[in-house]
């Protein structure tokens, strides 16, 4: 299978500060890839470069065609980006959040709502609740559900484990794996928690100060001396 998403020599900058220096990575269709690294290594910026929410240059290809334009153009290409802070519309209800997820699509939402039900059974009875009043874990699930409503080909996830209790992190990653296996969603996930990310992903990239320092299959990286010392802590 060829690469669904390909970045070649991508730079990104916030004003005068360059955050990515020639990052190259590729994500095959149907796989889960992880981007690891310390704070400030450029993990979030990598996702933002893909979704066009940061000034970028270099070659970005999605499904054989170049990625151009800003966030809404990227969404229309079938890429769902769950950003830092989860992108929840806190003031709107749970079901309004889900409807917004499906914004780029035409036609009815019945099928999708039913499928969201399968993965997130609690959503039905909370659907008229204001999304900002959900717990952190519920908001993260709502973000996944919202992204799922978009029927994307690819999911960009920014630190899904952030601020969640270990049990919830396991639950969230279980759902991500299910979405990948049952729905064929390609996933690019950015994580601080290298341990769980390497278990989930088949390929991983380690970023250091805006450059890819290491990359390869997750099981190889797991054995890698410097990864173990810096990110896995044993």
């Amino acid at each position, binding site marked *: 299978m060829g690469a669904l998403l390909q970045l070649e020599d991508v730079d990104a900058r916030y004003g005068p500060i360059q955050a990515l220096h020639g990052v190259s990575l590729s994500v095959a269709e149907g796989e889960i890839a992880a981007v690891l690294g310390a704070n400030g290594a450029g993990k979030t910026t990598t996702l933002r470069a893909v979704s066009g929410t940061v000034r970028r240059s270099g070659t970005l290809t999605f499904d054989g065609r170049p990625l151009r334009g800003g966030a809404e153009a990227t969404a229309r290409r079938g890429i*769902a*980006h769950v950003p830092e802070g989860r992108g929840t*519309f806190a003031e709107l209800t749970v079901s309004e959040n889900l409807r917004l997820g499906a*914004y780029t699509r035409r036609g009815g939402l019945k099928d999708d709502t039913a499928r969201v039900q399968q993965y997130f059974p609690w959503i039905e009875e909370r659907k008229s609740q*204001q999304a*900002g*009043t959900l*717990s*952190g874990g519920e908001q993260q699930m709502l973000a996944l559900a919202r992204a799922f409503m978009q029927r994307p080909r690819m999911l960009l996830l920014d630190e899904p484990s952030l601020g969640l209790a270990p049990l919830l992190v396991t639950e969230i990653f279980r759902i991500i794996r299910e979405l990948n296996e049952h729905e064929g969603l390609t996933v690019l996930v950015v994580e601080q928690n290298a341990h769980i990310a390497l278990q989930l992903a088949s390929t991983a990239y380690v970023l250091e100060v805006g450059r890819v320092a290491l990359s390869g299959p997750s099981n190889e990286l797991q054995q890698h001396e410097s990864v173990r010392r810096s990110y896995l802590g044993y």
Partner: protein
Amino acid sequence: MRLVARKTRVSTGASVPVLIGIAAVCVFLVIGSLRSDIFAQQTVAGLSQGAVFASLALALVLIYRATEVINFAQGEMAMLTTYIAYQLTIWGVTYWVAFPLTLLISFALGIFIYGVFIRPVQHRSVIALVIITVGLFILIDGLVTWKWGADLKFMQAPFGNQVYHAGGVAFARQDIGVLAVTIVSVVLLWGLFQFTKLGLAMRAAALRPAAAALVGVRVDWMLAVGWGLAAVLGAVAGLMTEPTQFLQPTMMQAVLLYSFAAAVLGGLESPAGSVVGGLALGVFLNLVGQYVGWATSELRLPIAFVVLLIVLLLKPNGLFGRKQVRRV
């Protein structure tokens, strides 16, 4: 998996004490109206004036929510569109055809103003935006005076001058008409925001532009449509002011001040609050004018602002000011 089973209370707009207060005032108005014909007349006339304040206040709130700026030119935009309706009737278009035509033109005007004047500086500074809306105020005022002159002009009375009698109470057909038109436009707008995909996208774009863009919403377009709709509401307010104030370049200036008061009274971020604020202000001012001897028409505007001051001292977020419940 069921994660958290607790129920959470959600604040949506007005708190319970405020709702009880509003209900009490409504009961008072109904009882008063049943016992006194003059009271009933003044209440209806007040509601009709308040409806005009409400629609312009709602326009201010729409723009405040979308662009986070008070549009000082809202009243003058309303005045300009009323002149456009006037021009259409001069050209022989009948009033009730000119009315929807004017609303369409207003929608385009709102989008035009957003695209040309607001969008380029939107993310720079709030002060710049405020100055621009003040500049628009002066620009529109000048253009209208240059084109149509400063003297009073008259349009056909849209609702006629009949008076209805119910029991001993006389209701001006015009008051009822103004009230009805405003209520219909507010309800239509509410429906748009609450039940349509466009309305939902507009709310999302105003609340969280970055997140809205990520789900594929064209945020700039949504804000432009918001300015268009605000201009339409303003046009309704202008056209409904014309029967009492007649057409002159200054016709909306006092109305704009009352509408500011109404919008702030309602909480500035709350569409429902601005409507309640507008209606309440209209009724209050009319009843005070009727029953308080020294409160002559010169004191109308000062009284409105004293009320505003008192409400804000008691409830700094306005009547419907919403405190967001948020958990991280």
